[in-house]
C-alpha cells in the first residue's frame, strides 16, 4: 500500500530518475575508464597469468580478457586456454 502511494506520488525509489541516472553513470564510467586505459587491462592480464600459473599451465598468447556490458551490468570476461593442470603437491597458495 505504501509502495503504491509512493509510486503514485512519483517517489518509487527504484524508478526515480536519480536512481536511473546513478546506475547509468556507474556503467558509463566503468566503460569509459577501461576504454581510455588499455594499459590497465594489460596489467590485469599479466597479473592473472601469474596467479593462474601457480595452478595450471596456460596458453598465454591465446589468453583474452575483456569487459563486456550486458543490460545493466558489466562483466569481466576471461578466456584462458588451459594446456595442463599441475599436480598440487602442497597446500594451495592462499593470498594473505
Amino acid at each position: 500500500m505504501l509502495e503504491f502511494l509512493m509510486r503514485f506520488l512519483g517517489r518509487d525509489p527504484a524508478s526515480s530518475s536519480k536512481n536511473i541516472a546513478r546506475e547509468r553513470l556507474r556503467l558509463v564510467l566503468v566503460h569509459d575508464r577501461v576504454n581510455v586505459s588499455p594499459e590497465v587491462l594489460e596489467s590485469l592480464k599479466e597479473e592473472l597469468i601469474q596467479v593462474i600459473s601457480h595452478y595450471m599451465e596456460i596458453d598465454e598468447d591465446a589468453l583474452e580478457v575483456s569487459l563486456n556490458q550486458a543490460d545493466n551490468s558489466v562483466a569481466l570476461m576471461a578466456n584462458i586456454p588451459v594446456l595442463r593442470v599441475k599436480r598440487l603437491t602442497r597446500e594451495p597458495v592462499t593470498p594473505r
Partner: protein
Amino acid sequence: MGEVVVVTSGKGGVGKTTATANIGTALAALGKRVALVDTDIGLRKLDLVLGLENRIVFHLIDVTSGNCQLKQALIRDKRLDGLYFLPAAQTRDKTAVTPEQMRELSAQLKQDFDYVLIDCPAGIEQGFKNAVAGADRALVVTNPEISAVRDADRIIGLLEASEITNSRLIVNRIRPNMVKRGNMLDVEDILDNLRIDLIGVVPEDEKILISTNRGEPAVLDSSSRAGQAFRNIARRILGEEVPFLNLEANEGWRPWFRRIFGLSNAR
C-alpha cells in the same frame, strides 16, 4: 611565490567561468593578490562576468607573442585592490599559444600574485593542454548530470596524467528540491564515482544570471546563496575549515513544516 589553479571541466557550460570570477573575487576580498586568466581563446567571456569588457586593450596572445608587456595587459579590477585580469584574445585561434608559453606566463604571474586562476576552455584538446600547462593544482567543475560527471571523470584522468595531483571537485547548479524529490543526482552519487575530494557545492541560483547581467560577481552580493558557496570555497582554498552549506534551508514552507511535525531528517 603564489599558486596557479586551473578551473576546468571537460564539458562546456557547467560554470567554469562563473566559478573563476567568483572564487577569484572572493579571494581578493579576503585580501589576497589574485590574477584571473581567460584562456578561452575566441570565446572570451570572463571579461563580461567581471564587468571589465570595456577596459581591454591587450590580451593573452599579445603577451605570449611579445606584442606587449604582461603589466600592460593586466586589467585592474574597479572594485577590489588586489584583483587583476588577463583577457583572452577574441580573434586569434587557439594554436597561437603553446603549452610552453603558458608555463612561462604562469611562472611569471606566480612571482607577483598569491593566486593565479586559469579559466579553461571546454574540451580536452589544445586549449585544455595550454590551460593546465603551468598549473599547480586544479578545480574540476561539474553539474549533477551524467554527461557532466562523465566528462569530469575524463578530465580527472588527464590531470593525473599531467601530474597535477591535489585536484578538488566543485558540484555546481545543485537544485535541492529536485534532489529531495529523487530527480537529480546528489553530491554523494557523484563523489562515489569520482576519485577526487569535494571543495564545494554551489546551488542553482538565479542571482548568478542577474550578477552576470550586471557584471558584478555574485560573491559581492551577500544575499546570494551561490555567492555564499563560492565565498566558502575561497576560504577552503586558503586552508580554512568551513562547514558545507545546508542547502535545505530557505526553501519556503517545507523546512518549517518538517520541523513542526518533527519530520526533519538528519542530513
